[in-house]
C-alpha cells in the first residue's frame, strides 16, 4: 500500500470523527443530552448508530471467515438479525421502551428496569452485571482494532492499543451520547458502502451472480474430511441434521447471537434517544437495509472467496489464508480487489470497531456512573455528567487492562460470554417490564440473578468453547467440561439459562402478582 495515500485517508477520517465528536460536545448541555442524546435523534442517525453498534469488526472479519469455512448456512443469522434484531426489536420492543422510558424518566437500560419495577436493587444489580461483563466484550473489539492498526500501519501493538483507545475515549467522554451517535452514523455510512462494493466486485470477479454460486455448489467434493465428519455438506448447503456442526450453527450462532441481541443494553438504550414513535417507524427500514448489507453481503463474500482461491491458488480459502479463519477476509480483499478498495475496506473495519467500542464505553460508563455510583454517593453533590465521565474513564482503563493482561484464548470468547450473560439475565426481565403488568419485582430480581448465575455456570463448566480456555473446570475437576454426553458441551448457554430465568420470573410473579407503580404506563 502507498504510505502517503494511507496516511491521508486516515487523517481525513480522523478529522471527520473529531469534528462529529466536537459537534456532540458543543450540543451537550444536560444529563439527558449526555446519556440519551437529548431524546431528539434523527431516525437516520438512530438507525445507522444502532446498526453500526450492532455490527463490530468481529462480525465482519470473524463471521465472514466462518462463512468461508462452513458456507452459506450463516445467512439464517442475517434473517434473524433483521427479523428479531430490527423488526421485532423496533416495533414490539422499541416503541414501548421509548414511551415507558420517557414516562419513567429513565436514562439507561438498568434505570429503565429499576424504575419500571420500582426497585433500586434491580437497577444496581443490572448496572453491576453490565459493568462486570462488558469490559471483556469491549476488550475483544479493542484488541481487534489494535491488531488491525498494528498490521496496517506497522505500529507496536501496545502503542496501537493506547492510541486507538485515546481517540475513542476523547469523543465519548467529551461528546457523550450525541458524540457517539454522530460518529456512529458516519462510520455506519462507510461500512454500508464498503460492504456494498465488496459484494458487487466479488460477483463481477467471479463471473456473475448465478455462475459464482454454481461454482461454489460444484465444489462439494472438495469439503475436507474433517468437516465432512462434522456434518458439512458443501458451502451452499445446511449441515446434516443433528451433526456437530448443525448444533453449533443452530444453537450458538443463530439462537445465541440472533436472539441475544434483544437484551443488549447498548442497543436498547438507543430506543430512548428518539422523540416519538414516528422516528422509530422511519428507522425500521434504514436499520434493516443496513443489517442486510452488513451481514448478508459479508457472509456471501466469505463463502464465495473459496471459488476465487480455488481458481487462483488451487486451495480452499482457509488453507490459502494460512489456516487462520480471521485472516480469510483480509487475504481475499488484498489478493482479489483493486488497491483503492483496500483503503475503503480498511476504513470499513476501523469504523466497525470504533462504532461498537464507543457505545460500549458509553454504556459501561453509564452503568457504573448513573446506575451504581449515583445511588451510593450523596445525592446532589456531583452532577450526573461528572460522575458518568469519571465512570467512562474507569471503564476504559479496565477494558485496556483486560486487553493487555488476559490470555488471548479467553478474550476470543468475550463476545459470546457477554451475549450469553446479557440474554439470560435481562431478556425475561425486559419482556416482562414492557408486556406484563403484574410481574413481581422480587421475581424479576431473582430471574436476573438466576439467568446470570446459570449462564456463568454453563460458560465455566459446560460449554467447552468457553470452559476450556477459562480453565476453572479443569482446575476443579481435572477435565475441560462436565458435559459428557453429546450434544451438551456444544449447546449455547442461552438455550439453557434463558428458559430457567424466564421460569423463575413467571412462577414468582404468578405466586404473588404485583400491581405496577402508578407512573408505569403500558
Amino acid at each position, binding site marked *: 500500500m502507498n504510505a502517503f495515500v494511507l496516511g491521508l485517508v486516515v487523517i481525513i477520517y480522523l478529522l471527520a470523527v473529531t469534528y462529529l465528536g466536537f459537534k456532540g460536545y458543543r450540543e451537550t448541555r*444536560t*444529563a*439527558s443530552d449526555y446519556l440519551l442524546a437529548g431524546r431528539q435523534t434523527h431516525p437516520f442517525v438512530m438507525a445507522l448508530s444502532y446498526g453500526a453498534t450492532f455490527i463490530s469488526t468481529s462480525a465482519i472479519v470473524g463471521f465472514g471467515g466462518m462463512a468461508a469455512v462452513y*458456507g*452459506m*448456512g450463516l*445467512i*439464517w443469522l*442475517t*434473517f434473524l438479525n*433483521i*427479523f428479531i434484531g*430490527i*423488526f421485532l426489536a423496533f*416495533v414490539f420492543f422499541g*416503541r414501548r421502551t421509548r414511551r415507558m422510558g*420517557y*414516562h419513567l*424518566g429513565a436514562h439507561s437500560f438498568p434505570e429503565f428496569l429499576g424504575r419500571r419495577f420500582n426497585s433500586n436493587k434491580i437497577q444496581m444489580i443490572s448496572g453491576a452485571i453490565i459493568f462486570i461483563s462488558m469490559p471483556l466484550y469491549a476488550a475483544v473489539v479493542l484488541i481487534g482494532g489494535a491488531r488491525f492498526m498494528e498490521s496496517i500501519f506497522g505500529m507496536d501493538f501496545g502503542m496501537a492499543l493506547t492510541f486507538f483507545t485515546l481517540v475513542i475515549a476523547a469523543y465519548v467522554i467529551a461528546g457523550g451520547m450525541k458524540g457517539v451517535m454522530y460518529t456512529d452514523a458516519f462510520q455506519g455510512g462507510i461500512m454500508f458502502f464498503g460492504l456494498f462494493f465488496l459484494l458487487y466486485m466479488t460477483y463481477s470477479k467471479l463471473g456473475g*451472480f*448465478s*455462475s*459464482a*454460486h*454454481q*461454482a*461454489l*455448489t460444484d465444489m462439494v467434493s472438495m469439503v475436507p474430511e474433517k468437516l465432512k465428519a462434522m456434518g458439512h*455438506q*458443501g458451502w*451452499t*448447503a*445446511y449441515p446434516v441434521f443433528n451433526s456437530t456442526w448443525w448444533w453449533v450453527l443452530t444453537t450458538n450462532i443463530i439462537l445465541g447471537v440472533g436472539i441475544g441481541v434483544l437484551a443488549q443494553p447498548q442497543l436498547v438504550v438507543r430506543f430512548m434517544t428518539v422523540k*416519538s*414513535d*414516528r422516528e*422509530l*417507524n*422511519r*428507522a*425500521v*427500514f*434504514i*436499520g*434493516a*437495509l443496513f443489517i*442486510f448489507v452488513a451481514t*448478508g453481503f459479508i457472509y456471501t463474500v466469505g463463502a464465495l472467496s473459496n471459488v476465487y482461491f480455488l481458481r487462483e491458488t488451487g486451495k480452499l480459502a482457509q488453507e490459502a489464508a494460512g489456516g487462520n479463519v480471521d485472516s480469510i477476509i483480509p487475504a481475499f480483499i488484498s489478493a482479489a480487489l483493486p488497491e483503492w478498495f483496500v483503503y475503503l475496506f480498511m476504513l470499513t473495519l476501523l469504523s466497525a470497531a470504533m462504532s461498537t467500542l464507543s457505545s460500549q464505553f458509553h454504556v459501561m460508563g453509564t452503568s457504573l456512573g448513573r446506575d451504581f455510583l449515583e445511588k451510593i454517593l450523596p445525592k*446532589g453533590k*456531583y*452532577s450526573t455528567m461528572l460522575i458518568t465521565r469519571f465512570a467512562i474513564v474507569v471503564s476504559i482503563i479496565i477494558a485496556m487492562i483486560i486487553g493487555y493482561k488476559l490470555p488471548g484464548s479467553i478474550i476470543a470468547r468475550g463476545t459470546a460470554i457477554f451475549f450469553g450473560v446479557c440474554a439470560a439475565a435481562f431478556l425475561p426481565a425486559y419482556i416482562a417490564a414492557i408486556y406484563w403488568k403484574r410481574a413481581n419485582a422480587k421475581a424479576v430480581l431473582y430471574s436476573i440473578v438466576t439467568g446470570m448465575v446459570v449462564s456463568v455456570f454453563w460458560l465455566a463448566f459446560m460449554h467447552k468453547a468457553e470452559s476450556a480456555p477459562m480453565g476453572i473446570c479443569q482446575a476443579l475437576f481435572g477435565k475441560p467440561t462436565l458435559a459428557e454426553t453429546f450434544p451438551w458441551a456444544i449447546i449455547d448457554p442461552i438455550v439453557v439459562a434463558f428458559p430457567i430465568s424466564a421460569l423463575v420470573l413467571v412462577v414468582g410473579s404468578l405466586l404473588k402478582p404485583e400491581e405496577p407503580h402508578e407512573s408505569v404506563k403500558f
Partner: protein
Amino acid sequence: MFGIDDPAIYLAYLFSIVCLAGCAVYGIVNWNKGHEPDEKEFGEELKWEKEEESLNEEL
C-alpha cells in the same frame, strides 16, 4: 435456484429479502404515524428541565 440447490440456504436468502421488503412497507405505511403531540410528554419534559436546572443551580 441461482446456482444454490439446498432449499435451507435459498430460503434463508428469500426470508431475509422478504423481511427487508416487509420493513420497507412498514416504514412507508407508518412514515408519519406516531407523532401525535402528547400533552403529558410536554409536561414531563418541562419537569425534567426544571429538575436539571435546580440541580445545576445547587451545584
